[in-house]
């Protein structure tokens, strides 16, 4: 699924926000392929929480819609939506489409 550019912008903007408070050697790359969490992931659990909070806020700003990324459904997915920026963008697209 091609990610909506508004979602990509929001997630990249969330990465900018996170990078502001992360050390130089732990900066996240603004790419859909960036691995967020899990094996080879750039974020620990607290970092992921901060990223999800920032992502929800940026998506609300970008789309005017409020979505909850970390609910029971996200946690029960066979493949975690939080694996990469790309998988998260796809999951955001699904949530936004469902709310229309």
């Amino acid at each position, binding site marked *: 699924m091609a990610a909506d550019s508004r979602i990509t912008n929001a997630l990249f903007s969330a990465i900018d*926000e996170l990078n502001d*408070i992360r050390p130089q050697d732990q900066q996240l790359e603004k790419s859909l392929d960036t691995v967020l969490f899990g094996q080879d992931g750039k974020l620990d659990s*607290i970092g992921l929480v*901060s990223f999800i*909070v*920032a992502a929800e*806020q940026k998506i*609300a700003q970008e789309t005017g819609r*409020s979505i909850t990324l970390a609910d029971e459904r996200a946690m029960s997915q066979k493949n975690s939506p939080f694996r990469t920026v790309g998988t998260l963008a796809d999951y955001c697209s699904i949530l936004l489409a469902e709310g229309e």
Partner: protein
Amino acid sequence: MDKKRILITGTRKGIGAFLASYYADRGFQVIGCSRGEPEWEVEGYRHFSLDVSDERRVVEMFAVIREEYGGLDILVNNAGVASMNHILLTPCTTVRKILDTNVTGTFLFCREAAKLMQRGEFGRIVNFATVATPLKLEGEAIYAASKAAVVSLTEVLARELAPFGITVNAVGPTPVKTDLIRSVPKEKMDALLERQAIRRFGQMEDISNVIDFFIKPESNFITGQVIYLGGV
């Protein structure tokens, strides 16, 4: 130094109204909320009318705070309701109302405030417990249980939010002469005061004194604690 931004819930009257005025007088930027408009005015105070358990309204309010204040430093979860009744005479609607305001409201405000605070890697959250919980007051089953939940919430959130530089503590007031205890019979009140180490009603300043301690920058190693007043 920039003025600290403090959000206090339940500011229409009682302890919340006192705290809003107390912190405004001390140069804080004070934001408050309650279901109705307050009957008082304080310079530098901004009010939101909402039910603290209404998720949509609460989230909207925090979006305004983020936009207009750029963040939040301190949250005081003062809003609370009580209902004195024997369990055999307590309707479920009363139980839901108390849990909604005291537990869901406290949870919602902690969650949304922490989202704002974690960006600045600093935050102070002060919740409201009550001596009714450790004293196991008869007739206060649901109120005491709801505040026991607030204590648990405080203790667990202290751990979850510590990595973000946010402390979470609670103050447990004794009875203070406000509307909350207006309907409690005098003999009940006297019996309750007898169980305190220091046998008097609490004053508003007793509560602000504990909050002052929790929110000090130097209190960054104090979290997950409940301070009960009166030696309970």
